[in-house]
C-alpha cells in the first residue's frame, strides 16, 4: 500500500474504477449519439430516455417473464432498436428537411413522454436488479478489489465501442455509412437505399443506448430518471469529443469518466462540474471538439 498526496491507493484506485465504469457508460451513450448525429443530423435528446427504457425492459423481462440478465442483454437492445425504428419512420423522418432544432425539440418531447410514462407507472424510487450469478463476487488484484460485474461492464463496453468503431471505419458497410453521411444524394445515385440505411442507423444508435441500460441495471437502480441524470454529462462528452466523431466519443467518454474519478479523490467539490469546465475550455479553444472536423 502506498499513498499519493495523502490519498491512500485503495481510495485512488477505487475512484478510478468508478470513473472507468461511468466512463464506459458515457462512451456507449455518446457513441450512439455520434452515430445518429453523423447520419441524421439530429441531436437525439431521447437517448437518455431510451437508455432508461433499455434498463426497464430488462427489469420487466425478469419480473414478468422470468427472462434473466443474459436474455435481456440481447432482447432489450432489440426492443429499444425497434422503438427507435418506429420513431424514425413515423416522426423523425418528417423533420430532415427543416432546421436541426426541430429534431432536437421532437426528441426532447419524446424523452419527456417516455420518462413521464414510466414515472407514472413505476414511481421514482427505483427498482433493484440483481447481478447475474455468473458475475457475482470479485477479484483481489492486490492493489484493489475488483467486483466481477464491474470488470465485465468495462470489458463489454470496450468491446462494443471498438467493435462499432471497426464496423464503421474498416468495413464495407461502414464505408456506405461514411459516404452517406457526406453525400446521401450521391450514394443513393449509386443504387443504395439511403432512407432505409438512415432508419437502421437510428435503430442501431438507440439499441446501443438500450444495451447500456441493461449493463447499468445491476449497478444503478432501474429508475425512470436514470437517463436524465446521465444524459447531460453525455452531451457534454459529445461536445468535447466533437459532434459525429466515433473515436472522439469513445476516447472522450472513457477519459472524462476517469477524470471525474480523479477529481473525486483530490478535490471532491469539483467532481460534478469538472466535465462542464472542460467543455467550456474545449469550446473556447477548439469549437469543433477534440476529434471533430470543422464543417
Amino acid at each position, binding site marked *: 500500500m502506498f499513498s499519493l498526496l495523502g490519498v491512500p491507493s485503495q481510495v485512488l484506485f477505487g475512484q478510478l474504477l468508478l470513473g472507468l465504469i461511468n466512463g464506459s457508460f458515457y462512451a456507449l451513450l455518446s457513441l450512439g449519439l455520434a452515430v445518429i448525429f453523423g447520419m441524421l443530423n439530429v441531436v437525439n435528446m431521447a437517448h437518455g430516455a431510451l437508455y432508461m427504457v433499455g434498463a426497464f425492459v430488462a427489469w420487466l423481462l425478469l419480473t414478468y417473464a422470468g427472462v434473466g440478465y443474459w436474455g435481456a442483454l440481447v432482447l432489450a437492445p432489440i426492443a429499444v432498436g425497434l422503438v427507435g425504428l418506429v420513431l424514425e419512420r413515423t416522426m423523425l423522418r418528417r423533420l430532415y428537411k427543416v432546421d436541426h432544432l426541430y429534431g432536437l425539440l421532437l426528441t426532447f418531447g419524446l424523452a419527456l413522454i417516455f420518462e413521464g410514462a414510466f414515472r407514472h407507472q413505476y414511481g421514482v424510487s427505483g427498482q433493484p436488479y440483481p447481478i447475474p450469478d455468473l458475475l457475482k463476487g470479485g477479484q483481489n488484484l492486490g492493489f484493489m478489489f475488483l467486483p466481477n460485474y464491474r470488470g465485465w461492464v468495462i470489458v463489454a463496453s470496450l468491446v462494443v465501442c471498438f467493435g462499432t468503431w471497426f464496423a464503421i471505419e474498416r468495413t464495407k458497410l461502414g464505408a456506405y455509412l461514411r*459516404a452517406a453521411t*457526406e453525400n446521401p444524394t450521391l450514394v443513393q*445515385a*449509386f443504387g443504395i437505399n439511403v432512407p432505409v440505411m438512415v432508419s437502421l442507423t437510428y435503430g442501431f444508435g438507440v439499441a446501443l443506448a438500450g444495451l447500456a441500460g441493461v449493463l447499468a441495471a445491476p449497478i444503478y437502480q432501474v429508475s425512470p430518471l436514470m437517463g436524465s441524470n446521465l444524459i447531460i454529462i453525455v452531451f457534454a462528452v459529445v461536445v468535447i469529443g466533437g459532434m459525429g466523431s466515433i473515436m472522439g466519443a469513445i476516447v472522450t467518454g472513457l477519459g472524462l469518466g476517469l477524470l471525474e474519478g480523479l477529481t473525486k479523490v483530490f478535490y471532491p467539490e469539483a467532481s460534478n462540474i469538472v466535465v462542464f469546465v472542460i467543455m467550456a475550455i474545449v469550446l473556447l479553444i477548439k469549437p469543433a471538439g477534440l476529434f471533430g472536423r470543422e464543417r
Partner: protein
Amino acid sequence: MPDGAMTKTAKTGTAMLEIADLHGFYGESHVLHGVSLEVRQGEVVTLLGRNGAGKTSTMRAIMGIMGKRTGSIRFQGTELIGMAQHRIPRLGIGYVPEERGIFSSLSVDENLTLPPVVKDGGMTVPQIYDLFPNLKGRGSTQGTRLSGGEQQMLAIARILRTGATLILLDEPTEGLAPVIIEQIGVAVRALKARGFTIVLVEQNFRFAATIADRHYVMEEGHVVDMIPNDQLAANMDKLHTYLGV
C-alpha cells in the same frame, strides 16, 4: 404504332435512352421545359448549351435527383419516372456528377469499390488501373487528397466496376489542365470502344467534338437542335450563336 417503332429502331440501332417531353422542377422553380432526346446503344452523345440551359438538370432528372418530373424517360424500355431513386442505377445507369463526389472520409480504394455491382460484365480493378494508371498504388490515400484530374478519373473509374452500360458524365474536363483533359479523352474513347453508351455534358466543345457521335444543343430547359458530329463543321456558325462563344 408498335410496328412503326420497330422499323425506326431497326434502322437507327436500338434506342437505349428515350426522353420525351420531360419537365423538371426544383421545388417551385420549373427548370426543364419539355426535353426530348434519344441515345442509341453504343453512342456517345453530348449535351451542349450555356450555363443554366438544363444540361445538368437533365442528368439529375434521369437519376431521379429532382423534386418533380413529368413526361417520359425510358431506359431500355423501362419508364424511370415514378421509380424509386435507388432502383434507377440498378438498371445499369452510372452517374459521374459535375462536382465529382469523391468522399473525403473514404480511401481511394473505398471510393473505387463503393458503388455496388449492379450487373455482370463490369470492368475489373486491374482493367480500370490499365485505363487510369494514375490511380494505381494510391489505394490507401484519402480520396480528396488526389489531384483534381485524379479525382475525376476516380469518379469515372468507380462507375466502370458496376456493370452499368449507360454512363452519364457531367463536365469531366471542368477545371482541368489540357494534358489531363487529353488523358480523360483517351479514357472516354476507350470506354466507347468497349461498347459503353455515354451521355456527356460539356462546355469544352472542342473536347466534345473529338469524342461524340451527336450533339444535342439545349437552351432554356429544352433541346433546340441536334447536330451529328460529321456535320459539325458545316454548322459552326449556328453553334456559335447557340453557345454565345
